[in-house]
């Protein structure tokens, strides 16, 4: 048996392989297994319908957020069109499923691939554009996709959208939140694993090189346009998968949810979670989804109070206000996000009691 490693009291790495390891100690690996066991065994036993609904939402959004973090956090290409790509995935899955009769297990990856292609088309401007010009181009992409979703009613059903039947996977009807929970979280674990490992490959290193200094990256022989497109593709693939899951989970899709606000929400998630951190994307999703749930609950409670009964319409915008305020406070006080807070907490435990 291997010797168990404890956290060292500083940075004593001697080789590049050590730097690249995901788990610094075997305890990390063990804790991950414990966490997965709790997630897949304990949570489904005790969670209520409502908790499962929130967990599923977190799962779906996390997948999309990881994709966006690969694009913004690792490759440094700011995209304001991720919400639209999420929508493209949802519509692609719905159309593949209802029109072409694809089964559930094929429709979801097909939606991912289709969205990846669309994402690469909207990534083409990155050939010539950088920074804020690219941001504006993707913003235009968002509006154009939204327009297509509403206007191309032969395929997308226009404003009425597309209703979906209950999906079946391996002969099991996915008709409850619990069954969806297993599908969503299996995919999330798988995709997280892929993303974490992708960053350690030549592709991931090329992405980071492009983010840090594109001119130097080009000089080192990295074909940056190819890698930028690839990054757009991978990121949209994640968005498309998540969108497909969303479509099947919601049972009906309309163009409204996939507006610019959703794109902004995704960016808020990865900023609050931490740019350039896969864990951060998940932490950020947990934070944002819980925040908006708490805000809607508070709004509901307030509206039911007698004192506010007359002003029922005007309380909902408070959600928007708090949301904006959270983003602003995070950017000013902890620009590296929850991932950084998590790191600080961990290292203060590790270095205790001599933390200086």
């Amino acid at each position, binding site marked *: 048996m291997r010797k168990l490693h404890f956290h060292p009291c500083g940075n004593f790495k001697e080789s590049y392989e050590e730097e690249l390891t995901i788990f610094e100690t075997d305890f990390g690996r063990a804790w991950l297994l414990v966490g997965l066991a709790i997630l897949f065994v304990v949570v489904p036993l005790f969670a209520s319908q409502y908790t499962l609904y929130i967990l599923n939402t977190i799962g779906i959004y996390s997948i999309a957020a990881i994709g966006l973090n690969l694009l913004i956090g690792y490759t440094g290409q700011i995209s304001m069109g991720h919400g639209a790509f999420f929508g493209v995935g949802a519509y692609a899955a719905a159309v593949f499923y209802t029109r072409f009769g694809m089964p559930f297990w094929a429709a979801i990856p097909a939606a991912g691939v289709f969205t990846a292609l669309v994402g690469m088309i909207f990534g083409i*401007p990155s050939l010539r554009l950088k920074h804020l010009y690219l941001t504006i181009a993707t913003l235009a992409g968002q509006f154009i996709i939204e327009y297509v979703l509403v*206007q191309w009613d032969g395929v997308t059903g226009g404003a009425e959208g597309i209703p979906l039947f209950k999906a079946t996977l391996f002969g099991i009807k996915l008709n409850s939140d619990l069954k969806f929970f297993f599908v969503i979280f299996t995919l999330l674990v798988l995709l997280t694993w892929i993303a974490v490992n992708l960053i350690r490959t030549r592709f991931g290193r090329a992405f980071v090189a492009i983010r840090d200094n594109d001119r130097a990256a*080009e000089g080192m022989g990295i074909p940056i346009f190819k890698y930028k497109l690839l990054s757009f593709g991978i990121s949209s693939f994640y968005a498309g998968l998540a969108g497909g899951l969303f479509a099947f989970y919601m049972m009906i899709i309309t163009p409204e949810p996939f507006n610019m606000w959703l794109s902004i929400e995704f960016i*808020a998630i990865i900023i609050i979670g931490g740019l350039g951190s896969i864990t951060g994307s998940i932490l950020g999703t947990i934070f944002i989804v819980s925040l908006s749930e708490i805000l809607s609950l508070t709004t509901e409670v307030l509206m039911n109070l007698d004192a506010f009964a007359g002003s029922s319409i005007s309380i909902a915008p408070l959600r928007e*206000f708090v949301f904006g305020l959270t983003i602003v406070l995070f950017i000013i006080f902890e*620009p590296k996000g929850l991932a950084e807070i998590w790191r600080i907490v961990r290292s203060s435990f590790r270095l205790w009691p001599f933390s200086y």
Partner: protein
Amino acid sequence: MEFFLHLLVNGVSLGFLYALSALGFVMIFKSSSILNFAHGELLAFGAFLFLVLSTWAGLPIILSFVLTLLGSFLLGFVIERLFLRPLIGEDLIQVIMLTVGLATMFKGLLLFIFGGDIHQYPKFLPDELTLKFDVIEIPSVYVATFIIGLVFLLLFGLFFKYSSQGIYMRSVADNQLAAMSLGVHVRRVFALSWAIAALVAAMSGIVLGIINGINVHELSSIGLKVFPVVILGGLDSIGGAILGGIIIGLLETFTGGYISTSLREIIPYLVLIVILMVKPYGLFGLKEIERV
């Protein structure tokens, strides 16, 4: 022919409004290279402040106009001081998201106070301003807009050319480091540019409010229309913003008139993508040559 002239007049007027809205945006970008997603909310803030002062508090129109401009000036100052100052030197995405967060915040606040309904100003423009050329009639609002716009453009032109603060602002826009080493207080210039931008935004907000009624959603969506306008004209060119505004305005009304009304909303963004691909720095933008 009459239809064509009608569209032409509408397009130019609409374009002039876009241009006016884009002015403040360009001003912020020119001095501090910040892409301001909260511009629409600045417009809305001005429009609502004017509503409160003129209608709810019942102050005379001229006085409330001046007070609105002053209030927005202060708001711009405070925004820069509280939110943007800590971010000097941070990554682009942080700054962009900060303005997005500010936009959400302001929008929520305005919706909370005023609701999502359309409010109206009392009628105060004299009818004599309405211009008539046999078949074409230009409403008094547009004429007033045109006059106000021209006066302010002239004032800004003079301000930038002759006043010391204006010269400081131009120097910072040209080269921050050089300006700083020559003793220009760069941070004060940033604050001033935000204040002036908010002031211009308030003015365009009021004008838009007179024409379409004041509605939070409507005004904040104008803030996004500004992007095609400024990209077309060049992000850092005031003249470009005006020309870009008029071109986009014409494009919108002609598409709406001759092709389809639903395409009207999206055409500026289609043009935007084409321009970005062909001529990323716009018609009059400063070209930064960089081959990557």
